[in-house]
């Protein structure tokens, strides 16, 4: 049952995507919405480059107040829950990077106003890798990491 459902889902998704592609004649993402989206960071192939592109600096110090909660072993690399709790004041942004992914920059969030230092999401991981959180607070970059073992990768499908 599960397998059939999987095949069915893949089929419908592919069908839908191709129709859209054929309809518009373009496969390019729209530039209007991507204006504020940090493309440079997402395109970077190494973790240092990505951090540099997003934060403008890659010098970060380890901080035990930053907590990265991720499973020690992920059975399914396509869905790895990651929680970042930043126990520091004045958190401006949080970024999550996966060292061994083809594009290490997974996601980030810019916080302001009443937001507290927490970011939770689910990411894909190709293979066993270090998951690092970069937290910008008070103009400084703090970091913490956690290693996740992946038995089945989530980037091939």
């Amino acid at each position, binding site marked *: 049952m599960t397998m059939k459902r999987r095949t069915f889902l893949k089929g419908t998704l592919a069908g839908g995507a191709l129709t859209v592609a054929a309809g518009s004649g373009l496969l390019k993402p729209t530039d209007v919405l991507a204006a504020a989206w940090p493309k440079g960071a997402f395109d970077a192939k190494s973790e240092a480059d990505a951090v540099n592109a997003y934060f403008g600096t890659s010098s970060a110090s380890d901080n035990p107040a930053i907590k990265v909660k991720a499973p020690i072993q992920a059975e399914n690399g396509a869905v790895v829950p990651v929680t970042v709790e930043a126990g520091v004041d004045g958190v401006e942004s949080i970024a999550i990077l996966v060292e061994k992914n083809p594009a290490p920059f997974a996601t980030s969030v810019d*916080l302001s106003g009443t*937001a507290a230092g927490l970011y939770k*999401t689910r990411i894909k991981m190709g293979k066993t890798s270090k998951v690092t959180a970069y937290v910008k607070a008070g103009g400084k970059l703090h970091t913490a990491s956690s290693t996740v073992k992946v038995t089945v990768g989530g980037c091939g499908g």
Partner: protein
Amino acid sequence: MAKLTKVKTRTKGDTTEVLVLVNHPMETGQRKDKKTKQKIPAHYIQKITFEHNGKVVADANLGAAVSKNPLTAISIKGAAAGDKIKVSWSDNKGESGGGEATVA
């Protein structure tokens, strides 16, 4: 394809967690269709914006490395019951959506 967006809040002490679940394929652009051997074009959410009482409190950037049907959460300090939370997202194909919730 209709895309569902669910927004939920959970209050614990003075912090309120805002959970967002979007029904979205999050295609990386790396996968190949087994039948046609064509690459499935990338299709993923790039931005999720959280608003608390009309003020933007968090602006999340997502890449293709975020799992499909992404569940994202942030937390807000000192939200009172009845406060409005608005979430909106947009993807790389220009599709967008959003949802609202009230702090319980």
